[in-house]
């Protein structure tokens, strides 16, 4: 990483171990910022470990004392008090999975994000290839249209899309969650820019070998485009795993179609005071997959999200 930009001029050329007031000050500011950024993550994970009493009184440090407490709901079911003593962390996480079909929600999330990405690639890749490498009448117009469509934020046209889906009776289906995202003009744009850099000779050679245009796309262009495709995959998955607005609109009744954000929202709706722990556990479970993936492959993630900032 370059360190030229703001390094204080007094520090230039001095041995690295010398105390530098400017350097220290920078770290003080950055650490303070980190604390604020991390605060809700700390609250979320910490509360998912604690008992209701500890949450209410704000005691118990990060992990809580993990002392067993009495589960009133279990008592209500008429079980023995001795059987109803639970450890907070276990209680919170098991309740998260028991109270709502959380596994189902997570599965829905995977189905929806995977289908969206798969279809987006299926549609965008051939189009990008044609725009980059084939010469045909109307190509410029199509590309112009792609550039125009980049202007349209899909969330903003949610209402007419909802009406169209309602008219054909598709609300409360997987299709409703997936269809509006099947076209990614950004994906077309990104892939086209990438394909432009692929030498024509490669494609001509493939044609000489008797490959048809379809197999050129999937056997020649696709492998070369893996880095761009990966970046696009990260963007697509992050956006749709976290999306709340669109599922909120098209999935109104059927719990079995809820995506993770919707499931969490519903949990919040009927949470009373005792449910803070399980709710935080649910939030942790929903947020964790992307965060963990991000921590493992930061560079790729940042690349992917940055590229897709274009959208």
């Amino acid at each position, binding site marked *: *990483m*370059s*360190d*030229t*930009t*703001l*390094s204080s*001029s007094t520090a230039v050329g001095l041995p690295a171990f010398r105390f530098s007031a400017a350097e220290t000050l*920078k*770290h003080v500011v*950055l650490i303070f910022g*980190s604390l604020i*950024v*991390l*605060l*809700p*993550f700390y*609250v*979320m994970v910490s509360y998912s470990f604690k008992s209701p009493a500890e*949450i209410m009184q704000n005691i118990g440090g990060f992990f809580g004392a993990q002392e067993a407490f009495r589960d009133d709901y279990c008592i209500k079911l008429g079980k023995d008090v001795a059987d109803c003593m639970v450890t907070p962390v276990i209680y919170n996480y098991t309740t998260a999975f028991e109270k709502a079909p959380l596994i189902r929600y997570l599965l829905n999330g995977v189905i929806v994000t995977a289908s969206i990405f798969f279809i987006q690639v299926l*549609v965008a890749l*051939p*189009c990008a290839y*044609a*725009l980059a490498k*084939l*010469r*045909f009448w109307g190509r410029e117009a*199509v590309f112009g*249209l792609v550039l125009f469509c980049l*202007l349209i*934020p899909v*969330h*903003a*046209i949610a*209402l*007419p*899309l909802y*009406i169209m889906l*309602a008219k054909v009776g598709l609300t409360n289906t997987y299709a409703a969650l997936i269809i509006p995202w099947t*076209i990614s*003009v950004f994906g077309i744009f990104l892939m086209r820019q990438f394909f432009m850099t692929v030498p024509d000779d490669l494609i001509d050679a493939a044609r000489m070998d008797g490959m*048809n245009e*379809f197999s050129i796309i999937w056997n020649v262009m696709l492998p070369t485009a893996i880095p761009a495709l990966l970046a696009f995959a990260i963007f697509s998955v992050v956006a749709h795993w*976290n999306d*709340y607005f669109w599922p909120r*609109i098209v999935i109104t009744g059927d719990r079995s179609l809820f995506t993770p*954000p919707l499931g*969490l*929202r519903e949990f919040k709706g009927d949470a009373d005071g005792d449910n*803070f722990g399980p*709710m935080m556990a649910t939030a942790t479970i*929903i*947020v964790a997959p*992307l*965060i963990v993936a*991000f921590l493992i492959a930061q560079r790729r993630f*940042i690349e992917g*999200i940055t590229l897709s*900032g274009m959208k």
Partner: protein
Amino acid sequence: MPRSKAHYWFVGPALFLMFVILLLPIGIASIMSFTNYSLGNSGAEFIGLENYEKIFTRSTYEKMFGATFRYVFVVVPLSVGLGLGAALLINSTKRFGDLYKTIYFLPVMAALIAMAIVWEFAFHPTIGIVNSTLERGCGTFLEVWGWYAHGCERGFPLWLTDRDYAIWTVAFIGVWQGFGFNMVLYLAGLTSVPRELYQAAEMDGAKSAWDRFRLVTWPMLGPTTVFVVTISFIRSFQVFDTVEAFYPQGGGPSKSVYVMMFAIYEKAIQQNLMGIGAAITVVFLAFVMFLTLVQRWLVERRVHYT
């Protein structure tokens, strides 16, 4: 060159979907915005500009614009400024840069709805960590600050339910969530600033760090800034998750957090007033497309997609 008609098959599906999913809805919204259509009714009456008239005259919508613009004009400058600041600081420290970068980027990855729920607890007046932390500062030098002393005496604000604070609190969460994204874009921009320029500037007498920033870094970041500002505008115009999580019944205390995206949702989906919802959609689209076009125009004087 085309020996086949393959391109029809390649471009066709994408074109079809672009028309049906992106262009047709704009047409539908535009037409519907002149009607009093609601889903389930057989017909709809053409009512001309009535919906638009409502949007630009009624106090509910005045509040909608007020909340939206307040939110946008807090979140955009702060998230751009903090993004730039963080990028410059991280770029200039010798150690732990990657660690800070990772931390600041975490909120971008986390589902906003989940984090909104967590923030709601953090801002809770009695059991929340924010106010309990603030209370710990009571009796120290911080009380010199009038607002703080007042808080110690009378209790700190009910962040999310006080109409004087609600929109700013929601905006704070927006900044918290978004500035890491801008930071990353700025870090990418900074790597493309040639080092020689700094040496040249120094020879020309730019001695202080501020001079170097003003004369080299900032101008070189111009295109990045245009892009970052536009992206931040578009993203903050579309705020919904936090508002719906905090105020499912509509718009927060005294409608002070009644942002446009929520208004569309409430009017059209909850109340089935499709006409007025469509009109807000059209106004909304006009804002966003205008902003993007301005950005295109600013950037395209330098870059061309060839």
